[in-house]
């Protein structure tokens, strides 16, 4: 023991903590995937002002954006089983990771819907009209003309969202799952050397955030080059 900070422990902890990266990655992938699908749905509901669903979507988005994710985690963890119990589904035996995935998916859907909405409205009306004029249906116009352009417009913001999601996974451990943060904490409380674990986390989070940002910048350049 002795010293408060032991650099050798950083190296020792690193593989232990990084071995939990797949769990973090799983949360991010599920959150982004669910966020895209559900977010597109919410965005369309809001843009077409679908009765009732629209009001519900507005409420939902402002709730998610207005509360910390840690609050949402616990609301889902304690509230979701109660809700599903009403319709006869018992999920009390669910592993904690599922609650985490549901929370991050729902959370991302709200943020993503706002991104998608503004990306879609950034595509000029003339594009939609031209699509209709050559005989595309509403859905075909969306899929073939509007969304591809919206996606390109939204790409930088989308990249930021992925990085934010990755960083926000650091709160998933509060439900007691053993992701990278959970692992660092467990090691810390076992060895009384907490700082080293968090230094490892800091290094991993900085590195991965930077890699993600570079990837997005690179991908965006590729997309845009293709067009010019």
């Amino acid at each position: 023991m002795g010293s408060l900070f032991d650099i050798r422990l950083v190296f020792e902890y690193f593989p232990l903590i990084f071995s939990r990266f797949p769990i973090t990655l799983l949360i991010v992938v599920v959150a982004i995937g669910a966020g895209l699908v559900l977010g597109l749905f919410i965005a369309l509901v809001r843009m077409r002002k679908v009765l009732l669903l629209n009001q519900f979507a507005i409420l939902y988005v402002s709730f998610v954006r207005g509360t910390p994710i840690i609050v949402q985690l616990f609301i889902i963890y304690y509230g979701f089983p109660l809700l599903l119990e009403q319709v006869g589904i018992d999920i009390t035996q669910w592993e904690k990771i599922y609650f985490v995935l549901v929370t991050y998916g729902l959370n991302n859907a709200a943020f993503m819907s706002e991104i998608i909405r503004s990306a879609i409205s950034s595509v000029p009306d003339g594009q939609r009209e031209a699509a209709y004029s050559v005989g595309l249906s509403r859905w075909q116009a969306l899929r073939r003309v509007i969304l591809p352009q919206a996606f390109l417009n939204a790409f930088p913001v989308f990249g930021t969202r992925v990085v934010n999601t990755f960083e926000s996974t650091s709160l998933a451990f509060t439900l007691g799952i053993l992701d990278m943060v959970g692992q660092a904490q467990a090691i810390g409380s076992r060895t009384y050397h907490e700082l080293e674990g968090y230094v490892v986390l800091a290094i991993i989070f900085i590195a991965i955030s930077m890699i993600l940002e570079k990837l997005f910048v690179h991908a965006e350049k590729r997309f845009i080059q293709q067009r010019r």
Partner: protein
Amino acid sequence: MIELKNVHKAFGKNTVLKGINLKVNKGEVVVILGPSGSGKTTLLRCINFLESADDGELIIGDTKVDFKNATSKEILAVRRRTAMVFQNYNLFNNMNAIENVMEGLVTGRKMPIGRAREIAKQALDKVGLKDKYEAYPLQLSGGQQQRVGIARAIALNPDVILFDEPTSALDPELVGEVLSVMQAVAKEGITMIVVTHEMSFAMDIAQHIIFMADGNIVEEGSPKDIFTNPKEKRTKQFLERILPRWNYSI
């Protein structure tokens, strides 16, 4: 043949079309003239339901549609019998020239890609863009973009092509290339309804001229009738303004 009966359209309290009746024969080129705000664009956009008219009837080929309660199926059917060339070209920015032309065929009409590509090539060759198949809209001049727009329309082999001021966003030196493509299209016997301020096109190419003002058709007739012998005061005033050296005795 395409026919409009008693078309009405208002934006809020602003009544823009006040009962338009119009008949266009197969193969005919009709030019619509009229001062700004008279409802020319709105009329064209009502024909392919980019604007929904409040009342009236549209007959196109053997399809008859009531504007007031058109279903989305009917609207799609009408759109698949028409095509439009826009003032600002409106090419799909995420597609290159040939993909722009193929899109309506492949996605809209479910045509096999190989055949659609052949048709698209022919259409692009026809508008003089043989060497621009792969170019994206941003890589093309305005005149070239508009020619892709025309190729996109003719590839669909529609019952009618609607042109809304196809040359008015172009630099003057590019107007000619687009007009001559339109002239070639007209010669092929494709039905065209053209809103334009290009009087030479109206005089030389149109078979029929419609003069609109304030949401009404004020006068219509052959180019000769309209340009040399207009009956209505509003028509005369308009022509005097737009053709400064125009006089009654041409």
